[in-house]
């Protein structure tokens, strides 16, 4: 951890390189493993890639949604505030599994037939909306944590409200919100496993299939667990380093 704080740039680089290297090369040691694992090495790799994609896409969209809704929740414009409150209330009050099923089954029936969403896209939409709602609260708390004197100084210098927000409030609030946002992102690695119910072939689905064919759940699920642990470790290391990186100018 200390190393992370001291060399955040290198740690970020290391974690990213490690993740890429893992996704690219994990099939090699896996294929050397005995019976239920070895023959399925390629499937495991594909599953891990899908899981990482799902996490990165939903995580990024989720951050944007969180920022927008977090701002909206603090807006002076009441309808917007109500809309954002409703969004957070709705998402946080219902199970993620239901949200995934809803996007997959219910949304196509109300959409024009010309638009067809892949299973992966449905999972990404549901996960983005879900993590976005949790991020909203973090961003809102971050904005509220910015001292009022910072806003007054910006106003007194003649910055417009938008400039004040973008140049002063947002960067400072994201620095406050980052640990919580990072936490949400790391749990997304695990939450993305629910996408298996709508037949997205991510890591958990791969495990389920391989054990069903081989009737050896123990080695298969242990392998899956190990891959998840490596992924979550890479993500938490990455976010911890990012946090240290953004810590400049912060009270020690």
């Amino acid at each position: 951890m200390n190393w992370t704080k001291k060399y955040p740039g290198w740690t970020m680089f290391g974690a990213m390189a490690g993740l890429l290297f893992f996704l690219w090369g994990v099939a090699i040691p896996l294929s050397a493993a005995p019976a239920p694992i070895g023959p399925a090495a390629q499937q495991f790799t594909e599953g891990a890639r899908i899981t990482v994609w799902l996490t990165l896409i939903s995580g990024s969209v989720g951050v944007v949604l969180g920022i927008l809704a977090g701002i909206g929740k603090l807006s002076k414009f009441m309808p917007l505030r109500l809309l954002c409150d409703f969004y957070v209330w709705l998402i946080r009050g219902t199970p993620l599994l239901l949200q995934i099923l809803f996007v997959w089954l219910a949304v196509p029936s109300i959409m024009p037939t010309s638009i067809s969403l892949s299973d992966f896209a449905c999972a990404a939409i549901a996960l983005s909306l879900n993590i976005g709602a949790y991020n909203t609260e973090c961003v809102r708390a971050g904005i509220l944590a910015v001292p009022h004197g910072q806003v007054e100084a910006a106003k007194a210098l003649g910055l417009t409200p938008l400039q004040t927000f973008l140049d002063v409030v947002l960067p400072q609030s994201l620095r406050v919100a980052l640990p919580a946002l990072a936490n949400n992102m790391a749990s997304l690695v695990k939450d993305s496993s629910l996408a298996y119910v709508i037949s997205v072939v991510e890591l958990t689905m791969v495990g389920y299939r391989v054990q069903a064919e081989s009737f050896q759940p123990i080695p298969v699920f242990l392998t899956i667990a190990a891959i998840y642990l490596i992924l979550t470790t890479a993500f938490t290391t990455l976010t911890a380093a990012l946090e240290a990186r953004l810590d400049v100018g912060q009270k020690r």
Partner: protein
Amino acid sequence: MNSTPQPIIIARNVDKRFGSFYALRGVSASFSEGQVTAIVGPSGSGKSTFLRTLNRLETHDAGEIIIDGIELNDNLQHLDAIRREVGMVFQSFNLFSHLSILRNVALAPIRVRKMSRQDAEARAMALLERVGLKNQAHKYPVQLSGGQQQRVAIARALAMDPKVLLFDEPTSALDPEMVNEVLTVMRELAHTGITMLVVTHEMGFAREVADRVIFFDEGAILEDTTPQAFFSNPDHERAQAFLSQVRHGF
């Protein structure tokens, strides 16, 4: 019409209420260009509130404020124009904590004056040199002492080339040994022809540097006179009491 120049700040019968409480009641004062005014008075007398109505950090409820010929009201163009002319230095510095010292000073010229980043940073560097902090340009606010931060805050305000600088107790949050470095910078500024309104408890500074002293009490101006007159024999008992309290307090 006539040859006497328009005052740069005119306040007429300004009221400010917080709920039913009057923080300012009928405050009238005008300030001519280049004048250095010390604003003194007991705690809660409305000194900060008055300063903050001048750049609309607080909106006044009645009366009028005209700065450099522009009326301060809900008109946003007027507000923009006035905020370009009026800089402010706060008691708690309020430097942008996520930006380096250099970026703190260069931000407003880049955003508001649309200066190129290169020009703005060169100018910021020159201003930092003027306040004696050129070698700290790439540090962050937390890495500086209070006195250094306040000098950066002054440089940041000067970067917008304001005609008026408002100081709200610029040395009150400082350790005693840092007060002088800030007062020195302010003393130098006072001779540059910029209009300064300084809320302060530093009576030495008021007496020595200011052209004029305004004494606030309960939201109104009770005395408006020269430092000599104010410190030797103030007209009002409240001002006398204030002065003797300040003298005995230090």
